[in-house]
């Protein structure tokens, strides 16, 4: 290097130390961000002088197959901004309580020695209560000592349990997967206490209901590396640049491998730059396009030139060949229920014969019963529950006919509803006449025959009102028909369908759909999803690497789910956690139900034929029915305390649990005891105490935010909607709407977000660089840690430690009020993956005298749970012996050996004289989870596979054979992320670096889906689905703005636009959006995106302020004017805080304007409430209506002189 000296004087180079010194650092620690972004990225946190200075991505993910691009680096613009928060001025450093409340509390505490009595005195004084409720969100925070804040919380807990019952104390925290122990902290505390955990995945509208409908699965998708295996990718309603930032490279890379990329998006969304074709489809009309795609596939690949590979696929892996009864009606036959095995003499002796189903066997030409259905799953016999092509009753091979055509003994005209046209059409299907055991003569056809007729694809010999050609625009689901909805030319639909099916055929099913909230947030999202999934199923693309429906909305994949859920819901101590689906709960409790009339105003359904249809009336009435029938949960359960209910039963002579349950059922039947859902506005039914942690429950996820402010908080609000449900919601008591239902709202947070600002108590939480935890996601197949790079700053503590403190203090105060253990009657709905899947073949309501109330059968389960409030703290910190038996997704895991290993080798606590594995510290919990999970302990995976292998009768243990000795600990993860093991709790296979793709186990190992027939369902024969006209894939038009009613009571000021809230670039939900980094790189606020011509029409130029309003509330922000959006729609990216630079609203009397959820109100799609049947049974975050919000309309006008 001597020559350098010739060129430049080395002395002039000495200054270079200047920047070298900046780069120096003291250590790097591995952590990640717990933010429900699905990234699950491993980061190195750099510490210098004891201060976190910056973060950089870790690169050391174990590699997948060599043919796949690697995962490094993972991490986005938001994650890399996180270090700003630690020492920023928005950091919550100390506990805060609002002055109005802390003054009342201190006064009361002087008067009462017992904190519980002190809290009671405040609650007994309506003026005092209203005083601090009115102050919510309006400043006046006071810094307090941690002990004082915790005592206040503990007093509120004990008081609420004592006066109202434990199910008035609720908690909300988002998706657990990103910081599993942190979620588990509050959930465990609440579950030990009998409190209520609110769901999140459905409330965010992240849950795709089509997934449970078709697959019996909450969500199961490919990891992002598998996109590279695809040969054709359709992206719809998803913007991976924005939302899957660390995964998006697989899209680009797949494209460079020759994959065709078609992006459907009304705006030129960022991902469109990767498209070979960008299809500017009309917002929310993707369902129409996909219906036409399947029309073309059915016509060309099933009728004109049938493809054996496609037929064989649907024969074995779907319900295509299952026989469906055709029921006569005045206008023609209608598609009815699946023909059950017990209908036929041949299967007369079959156990659960009404839950086993029939196909027409091509070999014998007779109806035969394959295995794999719910009846086989929940029967006594092993080895019956599989997808083999054989009749398990005899072992004979069968070959299901997917169509009766050519085997039929007649044709039957069937009525098909076309909801877009408001008519029914008659089309002939091939049918067979069968004699049943009870002497009936029934007409049957196959699900496939019904479906192809539904799509309007005519076959030879079948008459009726079929589509004449692709150009028949009058016949639903033709390429020409879809144009009027999607705005997409028929040629695009036809060529897309051909390329799709050809690619699938040539590659063995490597076509995938990447789909997201842009579809899932519409009212009819389940139908839109289903229309796409049908195209996947018809072309054999599900359960294949590179294929399938890849729904990425929320980080729902908590890989070590079995031990985690035991810890989170305290099942190690007692069953009976109260798990509430949040959409139903908020719809009812925050009184949004009061603001709408019949759902049929905006939701087309078949005519209520004989008055028994559930597809009529008010959504709240169906919700109440869903609770009565055991389809959905609802808390509080009763208009009495669930503790008092047991006491009364005991007082009336009940001895056993069965006695208690019988007495309660009798009281419910007589009306002496009422379920709270029927009178949600009565004070005895209000929720009282709310814990919020890891989330922004009052803003980012508060659909109907202004309704929250009004009815929950009792503070100012900007809603002007008028109530409409009086006299229409018949099963619910109508009272004056309460304002301020909650006694107390406590937020655990590291930043002063909107929820913190509106809460009564704010506790300082440790950040993601200050605590131990676990992280997993469905976007990759690793598990990795959060770690303490620096200790929790200032007075902050981890969620785990904060809830332990609350539990310990609550136990201490409970000693006086509940010195003895209590009995709590817990009411839970009929559960998925349990024998309750075969509870209800018909919809019968005991409260209407249609059947007897039988817990667990015609109504919810009722269980007596013993609780000891004085032991909350001890039990919180120790793993109870109930953890020896784990289960998840129907797989039972006996882990007694491993539990004892923990007792021997891990830190322990002594509870009631017993040595139990410790959960005192979060890292203890992490190690317990890793030790007991099949995904991280190969021996447990082997046990689970052995259990399933025996039950199903298919070979599975080979999947764990190579990794029985694999085992990881928390410190292993700190040194490197680890790939998950093959697990009986999940459906994808990971052997030898193979990319995870959902349902490959089903396809390759013949393990059934957890559905009614065990197959993927084209056809949904739940009586409720038939009532709603959704038994077959269909298209229902978007609710009209008038009927949906967002602008009924608003001034006609400004233009009307469809209001979209997709995920944005500068935040993950509301996190990061308030950081200096993201504000600087965006527009210094969360702006309002509007089309250039629309903006011009209201005199708005770029960066002007605008006022966006509807009946629900108002938002004031800056406009971004862009050609990127089509006319008629607008975007506020999800989701801004209302705490940063938000102006006041002239339309609302110069009150501070709100955030994006100020413009929403939730409508629930009632068909998603039905249950008690197969895959239509409740599981937390799996089943129930979702919090849709994309059909919303707003008005927009210029705001000339903003006042901030």
């Amino acid at each position, binding site marked *: 290097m001597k*020559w350098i000296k010739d060129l430049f004087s080395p002395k002039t180079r000495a200054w270079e130390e200047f920047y070298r010194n900046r780069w120096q650092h003291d250590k790097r620690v591995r952590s990640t961000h717990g933010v429900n972004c699905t990234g699950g990225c491993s980061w190195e946190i750099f510490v210098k002088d004891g201060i976190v200075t910056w973060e950089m*991505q870790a690169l050391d993910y174990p590699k997948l197959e060599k043919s796949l*691009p690697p995962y490094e680096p993972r991490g986005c613009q938001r994650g890399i901004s996180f270090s700003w928060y630690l020492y920023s001025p928005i950091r919550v450093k100390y506990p805060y309580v609002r002055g109005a409340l802390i003054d009342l509390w201190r006064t009361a505490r002087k008067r009462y020695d017992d904190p519980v009595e002190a809290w009671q005195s405040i609650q007994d004084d309506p003026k005092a209560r209203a005083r601090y409720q009115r102050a919510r969100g309006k400043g006046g925070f006071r810094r307090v000592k941690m002990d004082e804040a915790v005592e206040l919380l503990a007093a509120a807990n004990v008081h609420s349990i004592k006066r109202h019952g434990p199910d008035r104390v609720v908690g909300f925290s988002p998706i657990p997967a990103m910081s599993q122990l942190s979620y588990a902290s509050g959930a465990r505390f609440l579950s030990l206490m009998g409190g209520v955990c609110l769901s999140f995945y459905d409330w965010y509208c992240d849950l795709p209901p089509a997934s449970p409908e078709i697959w019996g699965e909450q969500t199961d998708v490919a990891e992002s590396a598998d996109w590279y295996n695809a040969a054709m990718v359709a992206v719809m309603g998803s913007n991976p640049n924005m939302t899957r930032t660390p995964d998006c490279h697989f899209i*680009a*890379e797949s494209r460079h491998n020759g994959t065709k990329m078609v992006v459907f998006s009304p705006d030129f969304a960022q991902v469109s730059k990767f498209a070979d074709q960008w299809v500017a489809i009309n917002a929310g009309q993707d369902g129409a396009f996909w219906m036409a795609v399947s029309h073309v596939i059915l016509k060309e690949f099933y009728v004109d030139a049938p493809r054996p590979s496609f037929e064989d696929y649907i024969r074995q892996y779907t319900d295509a060949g299952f026989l469906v009864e055709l029921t006569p009606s005045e206008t023609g036959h209608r598609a009815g229920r699946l023909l059950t095995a017990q209908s036929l003499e041949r299967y007369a002796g079959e156990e659960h014969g009404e839950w086993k189903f029939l196909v027409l066997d091509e070999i014998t030409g007779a109806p035969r019963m394959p295995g794999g259905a719910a009846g086989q799953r929940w029967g006594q016999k092993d080895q019956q529950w599989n997808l083999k092509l054989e009749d398990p009753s005899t072992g004979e091979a069968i070959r299901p006919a997917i169509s009766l055509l050519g085997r039929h003994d007649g044709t039957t005209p069937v009525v098909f509803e076309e909801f877009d046209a408001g008519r029914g059409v008659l089309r002939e299907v091939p049918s067979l006449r069968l004699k049943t055991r009870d002497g009936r003569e029934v007409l049957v056809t196959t699900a496939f025959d019904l479906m192809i007729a539904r799509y309007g694809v005519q076959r030879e010999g079948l008459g009726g009102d079929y589509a004449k050609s692709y150009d028949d625009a009058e016949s639903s689901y033709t390429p020409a028909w879809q144009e009027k909805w999607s705005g997409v030319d028929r040629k695009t639909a036809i060529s897309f369908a051909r390329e799709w099916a050809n690619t699938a055929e040539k590659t063995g099913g490597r076509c995938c759909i990447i789909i997201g909230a842009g579809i899932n947030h519409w009212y009819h999202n389940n139908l839109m999803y289903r229309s796409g999934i049908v195209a996947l199923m018809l072309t054999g693309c599900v359960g294949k690497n590179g294929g399938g429906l890849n729904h990425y909305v929320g980080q729902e994949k908590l890989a070590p789910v079995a031990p985690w859920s035991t810890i989170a819901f305290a099942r190690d101590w007692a069953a009976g956690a109260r798990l509430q689906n949040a959409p139903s709960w908020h719809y009812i409790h925050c009184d949004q139900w009061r603001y709408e009339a019949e759902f049929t105003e905006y939701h087309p359904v078949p005519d209520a034929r004989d008055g028994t249809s559930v597809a009529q009336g008010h959504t709240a009435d169906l919700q109440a029915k869903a609770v009565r029938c055991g389809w959905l949960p609802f808390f509080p359960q009763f208009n009495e305390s669930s503790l008092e209910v047991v006491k009364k039963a005991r007082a009336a002579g009940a001895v056993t649990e069965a006695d208690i349950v019988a007495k309660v059922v009798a009281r419910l039947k007589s009306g002496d005891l009422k379920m709270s859902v029927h009178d949600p506005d009565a004070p005895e039914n209000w929720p009282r105490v709310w814990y919020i942690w890891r989330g922004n429950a009052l803003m980012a996820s508060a659909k109907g935010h202004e309704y929250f402010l009004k009815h929950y908080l009792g503070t100012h609000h900007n809603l002007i909607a008028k109530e409409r449900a009086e006299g229409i919601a018949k099963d619910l008591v109508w009272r004056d709407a309460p304002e301020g239902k909650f006694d107390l709202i406590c937020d655990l947070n590291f930043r002063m977000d909107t929820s913190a600002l509106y809460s009564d108590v704010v506790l300082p939480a440790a950040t993601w660089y200050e605590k131990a935890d676990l992280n997993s996601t469905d976007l990759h197949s690793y598990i990795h840690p959060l770690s303490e790079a620096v200790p929790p700053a200032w007075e902050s503590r981890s969620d785990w430690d904060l809830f332990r403190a609350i539990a310990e203090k609550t136990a201490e105060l409970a000693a006086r009020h509940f010195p003895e253990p209590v009995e709590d009657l817990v009411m839970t709905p009929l559960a998925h993956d349990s024998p309750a899947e075969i509870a209800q073949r018909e919809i019968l309501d005991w409260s209407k005298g249609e059947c007897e109330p039988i817990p667990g059968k015609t109504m919810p389960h009722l269980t007596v749970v013993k609780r000891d409030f004085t032991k909350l703290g001890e039990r919180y910190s120790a793993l109870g012996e109930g953890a020896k038996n784990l289960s998840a997704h129907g797989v039972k895991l006996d882990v007694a050996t491993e539990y004892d290993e923990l007792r021997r080798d891990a830190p322990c606590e002594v509870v009631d004289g017993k040595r139990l594995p410790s959960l005192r510290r979060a890292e203890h919990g992490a190690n317990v989870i890793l030790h007991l999970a099949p995904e991280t302990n190969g021996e447990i995976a082997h046990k689970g596979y052995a259990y399933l292998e025996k039950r199903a009768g298919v070979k599975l243990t080979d999947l764990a054979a190579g990794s029985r000795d694999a085992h990881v600990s928390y410190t292993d993860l700190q040194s490197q992320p680890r790939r998950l093991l093959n697990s009986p709790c999940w459906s994808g296979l990971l052997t030898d670096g193979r990319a995870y793709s959902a349902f490959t186990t089903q396809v390759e190992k013949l393990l059934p889906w957890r559905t009614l027939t065990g197959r993927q369902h084209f056809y949904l024969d739940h009586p409720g689905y038939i009532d709603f006209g959704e038994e077959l894939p269909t298209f229902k038009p978007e609710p009209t703005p008038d009927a949906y009613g967002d602008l009924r009571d608003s001034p006609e000021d400004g233009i009307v636009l469809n209001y979209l809230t997709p995920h944005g670039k500068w935040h993950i939900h509301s996190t990061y959006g308030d950081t200096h980094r993201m504000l600087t790189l965006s*527009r210094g606020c969360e702006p309002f995106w509007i089309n250039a011509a629309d903006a011009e029409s209201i005199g708005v130029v770029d960066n002007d302020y605008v006022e966006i309003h509807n009946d629900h509330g108002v938002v004031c922000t800056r406009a971004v004017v862009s050609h990127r959006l089509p006319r008629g729609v607008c975007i506020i990216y999800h989701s801004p805080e209302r705490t940063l630079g938000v102006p*006041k609203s002239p339309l609302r009397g110069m009150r501070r304007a709100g955030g994006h959820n100020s413009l929403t109100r939730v409508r629930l799609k009632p068909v998603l409430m039905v249950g008690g049947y197969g895959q239509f049974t409740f599981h937390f975050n799996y089943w129930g209506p979702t919090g849709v919000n994309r059909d919303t309309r707003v008005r927009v006008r210029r705001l000339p002189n903003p006042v901030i």
Partner: protein
Amino acid sequence: MDVRSQVAMVFHLDKCIGCHTCSIACKNVWTDRKGAEYMWWNNVETKPGTGYPTRWEDQQQYKGGWERDGKLIKLRAVDKVRGAVTVFHNPALPTIDDYYEPFTYTYEELFTAAEGADQPVAKPISMITGKPMNIEAGPNWDDDLGGSPVYAANDPNLEALTPEERQQMFDVEKLVFFYVPRICNHCANPSCVASCPSGALYKRGEDGIVLLNQERCRAWRFCVSACPYKKTYFNWSTGKSEKCILCYPRLESGQAPACFHSCVGRIRYLGILLYDADKILDAVNVPDSELVDAQRRMILDPFDPEVIAAAKERGIGDDVISAAQRSPVYKFVMEWKLALPLHAEHRTLPMLFYVPPMLPVQAKVGDYGYDTSVEGFLGSIDQARLPLKYMAKLFGAGNEAPVRYALRKQLAVRHHRRALQACDITPEQAQALLTEADCDVEQADAIHRLTAIAAFEDRFVIPPMHREEAIELLDEDTLAAKGSTGIGFREGPARGP
């Protein structure tokens, strides 16, 4: 032959997702301090758009770079002689309005606000004055076509288009955008270095990194106007200019620069190029249309024995030559000719090269709606939404040929890979496309591998920096440095004289 070793770069724009992670990685480490708030050594721009600082590409206004002047080239705006005249008033210097006034919020109000009648908010304030302000601009203001009637429509590169074509760019059938991340190009003929009256700017001999000496800078700011890419910035607090340092402290310890490391689109490549400094003048003193080729002629083949001998003669070590032979940048720029310099017409010989992006095919809107059905399975370059002449303005100094070549080859590689995986394109069809694109199967697979599969160590081939020798060059004892590095009192940089 005067062989120089240059750390050079490729950004593969087809892969860029526009996430700006790179920008923040840089900001966190280097410019997160007083006076540097507005500095974005790494920024990402949406194209079409006006970029940062706004309309930086408009040299009518900013007068950056070099221009041909008869037999030689000269700086467009200032040089050391003319500069003296304009030092107190340099009209080509960007002002704060061309950047933005850095802002923050009064976050603390959310904690401290007294109870009132309405909800408190944090208000925007200037980071320079501390006073309330109206936010009117930012470093990424026109992101994703934000404000397209004002910004995208005024992209200087649209001058290549007819008024009709410009109008059509904003119709849905043609609407499109892509991203261009930008750092200092560490040019082989840097106009910033040439412009500095104080000699504070220099190009490091061992790796070609262009640095700005923080001791020597005298705040002339000639570098700011001379750089046609506007990649030097004046620190208003220390009174020194600063610029991208290509993370030399990281490179010196064998790590990729922060923006490269953090690139989650995996679009970035870094490696050595050897070039012949004797050919610099030849490379810049040609008509615009020949600039891309001329620059390539300056770059040397690291496998050529003559080059190797000349390099060794110059003191370039075997390990650096080996790194040059493994350089992904050499492959993209020289072997495959896929990567092109940005705005070569400024004649600074940028050492950062861009692979131009493929974009969606055009649509038609007819009687039946929006139609994107196309003849070819993956479309073609001429069906792409952005006119080639726009791309040529950015990456071909106006010449479409090198851009067409790079795009055609990318598309041919995709067809080749398609034929392998989906067999709906025949090997013959794929071969014909490859031949037409001046590519063979071996090269196509190599392109695919480096574009799609490459791991960190394939994308970044960092040459050994021999810090021990560099310390000796300062007449210091390396063993002593081992014991004393980092010892001393920390001092902030002082405002210059």
